[in-house]
């Protein structure tokens, strides 16, 4: 039952928020308490899974593989946990960052619905059910990304919505093919069935549909176009959550499918993933280099980093997968944080254009430190969390002699550093804008009053930065979990036995 608690909390809270539609204040209280409850239930779930092993539950008590299975292995539990972490951060940030009209038009319930969808996607053990969760998540994100109807928002969301719609349809087609070939929808049962099926060619064909569908959702090359077109448009509490979380749901699904189900033809599928991973890294980082808008740079970095995660999957060794998982967790936290920080600098300088920024280093040392932690972690400066993620992948790649991808990953690391220092130089080190200088000189304690006023935006940033530091200095806990998770993925017998109740 532990498995249903998170989603029940979220959906009940969302419904309550809708019932109190005209009272955003009450919605706020409901949402915050729900998110904290969700966090607690995620912690409990993770604790159970890591200590007692894989947890499963059959919705409605219908036995597997007939009913829908909810299953949490270490990977899923970790994903739920990190989801709860960033949603705590984002909702607190949102209290200050999201304006009243958005709050009055359904921000809270949709926020909850989105996390509801994400959590469901992480926990379900059924292919079609996964589709449903994807849709819940996507439609919520459609709403969130267009909420407020700013010009840029609308433009970006057209591409976001259309391309993601196509991806969902491909998902459906893939589900259809898979059901036709194997006669089941349960992921564990699929894993078993696929080893018995005589048409490997057909399975690969269905794998291609999933690859493309998840590829769009995860923003892989050359399917990522929607992401840089849209992620920078909504308010930052929203884009922070999306940037951190949503693409990773695609990556999660990709990893789940290409470890549990589609392992019959790795020479083709995983090689394809490897090539795509390399290109994704490169093209993403080049995009980041090209841009001069804080959030656009960050958006392109998401793509680039997705490449690393897929690289971990494509290498397909226990260590590589552990690296991918480590990378995902690290990236969700860091990327969300960077988006949130960009919101802070924006509220200081009034612009996301890095050239129209400056002076943060001189007047806001705290914010600068927080940025340093996140940005240089992203660039892989040791011993921040990003270093470990990259190191594991490099090690794993070297071990199976994939020098090319390792080389690319290292080079991209450098280019990431290049563009992070670009932001640092222009936004933090550079001289403050005239407006900022004026404010600082005219108002006594301008800095302090700013920090006090925006404390709701700063606390979550500090919170996430602490996690980043913690992972960096004490990587062992997460590392052990990631290795546990990757062992479960590489050797899916435990998973299958837990779901199908075989012994």
């Amino acid at each position: 039952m532990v498995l249903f608690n998170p989603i029940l909390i979220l959906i009940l809270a969302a419904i309550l928020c809708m019932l109190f539609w005209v009272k955003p204040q009450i919605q706020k209280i409901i949402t915050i308490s729900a998110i904290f409850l969700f966090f607690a239930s995620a912690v409990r779930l993770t604790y159970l899974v890591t200590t007692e092993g894989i947890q499963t539950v059959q919705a409605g008590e219908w036995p597997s593989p007939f009913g829908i299975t909810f299953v949490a292995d270490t990977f899923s539990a970790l994903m739920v946990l990190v989801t709860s972490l960033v949603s705590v951060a984002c909702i607190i940030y949102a209290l200050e960052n999201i304006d009243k009209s958005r709050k009055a038009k359904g921000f809270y319930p949709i926020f909850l619905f989105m996390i509801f969808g994400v959590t469901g996607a992480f926990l379900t053990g059924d292919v079609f059910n996964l589709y449903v969760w994807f849709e819940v998540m996507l439609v919520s994100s459609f709403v969130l990304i267009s909420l407020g109807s700013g010009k840029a928002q609308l433009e970006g969301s057209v591409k976001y919505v259309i391309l993601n719609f196509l991806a969902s349809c491909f998902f459906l087609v893939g589900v259809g093919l898979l059901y036709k070939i194997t006669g089941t929808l349960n992921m564990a049962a699929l894993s078993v069935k696929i080893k018995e099926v005589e048409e490997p060619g057909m399975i690969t064909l269905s794998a291609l549909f999933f690859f493309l569908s998840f590829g769009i959702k995860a923003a892989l090359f050359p399917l990522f176009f929607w992401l840089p077109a849209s992620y920078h448009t909504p308010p930052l509490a929203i884009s922070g959550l999306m940037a951190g979380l949503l693409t990773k749901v695609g990556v999660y699904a990709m990893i789940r499918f290409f470890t549990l189900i589609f392992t019959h033809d790795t020479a083709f599928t995983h090689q394809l993933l490897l090539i795509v991973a390399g290109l994704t890294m490169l093209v993403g980082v080049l995009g980041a280099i090209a841009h001069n808008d804080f959030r656009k740079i960050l958006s392109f970095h998401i793509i680039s980093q997705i490449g690393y995660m897929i690289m971990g999957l494509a290498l397909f060794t226990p260590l590589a997968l552990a690296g991918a998982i480590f990378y995902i967790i690290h990236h969700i936290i860091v990327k969300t944080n960077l988006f949130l920080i960009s919101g802070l600098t924006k509220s200081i300088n009034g612009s996301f254009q890095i050239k129209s920024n400056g002076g943060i280093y001189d007047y806001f040392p705290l914010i600068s430190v927080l940025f340093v932690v996140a940005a240089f972690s992203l660039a892989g400066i040791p011993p921040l969390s990003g270093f470990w993620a990259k190191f594991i992948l490099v090690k794993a790649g070297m071990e199976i002699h994939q020098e090319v991808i390792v080389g690319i990953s290292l080079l991209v690391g450098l280019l990431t550093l290049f563009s992070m220092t670009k932001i640092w130089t222009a936004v933090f080190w550079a001289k403050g804008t005239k407006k900022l200088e004026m404010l600082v000189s005219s108002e006594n304690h301008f800095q302090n009053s700013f920090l006090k006023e925006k404390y709701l935006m700063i606390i979550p940033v500090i919170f996430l930065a602490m996690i980043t530091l913690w992972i960096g200095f004490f990587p062992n806990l997460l590392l052990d979990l990631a290795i546990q998770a990757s062992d479960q993925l590489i050797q899916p017998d435990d998973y299958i036995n837990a779901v199908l109740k075989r012994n």
Partner: protein
Amino acid sequence: MNLIVALVIGILFGSSIYLMLNRNFFKLILGVIVFGYASIYFLFVISGVTQNNPPLIREETAENLQKLADPLPQALTLTAIVIGIGVQLFVIVLLKKVYGVLKIEDLDELQSTDEIDQPKNKEE
């Protein structure tokens, strides 16, 4: 029989993409709708079709359940259709709003969010 169904699906998929590529708001919507049909129809027919034996259990059919159609793809299709409705309606409203706010008739003009903004003063 397979060929015809397959052709219908292929034609639907192909033409929906063609509609979407037309740089026109309205055709984009139509393309989305047709693409939705095509994939849902695919989901339905691919898992095998049975003629004239709906999965309604009656006294006369209770003996030979194997004859009945597989209810699962039908249920999946139903769910997909309803979800599709939600998404389609959202797309429609979104494009309406985009047109209302941006006042453009050509989808190609929707590219400001992809542009690389050039800085005013050059540094670094």
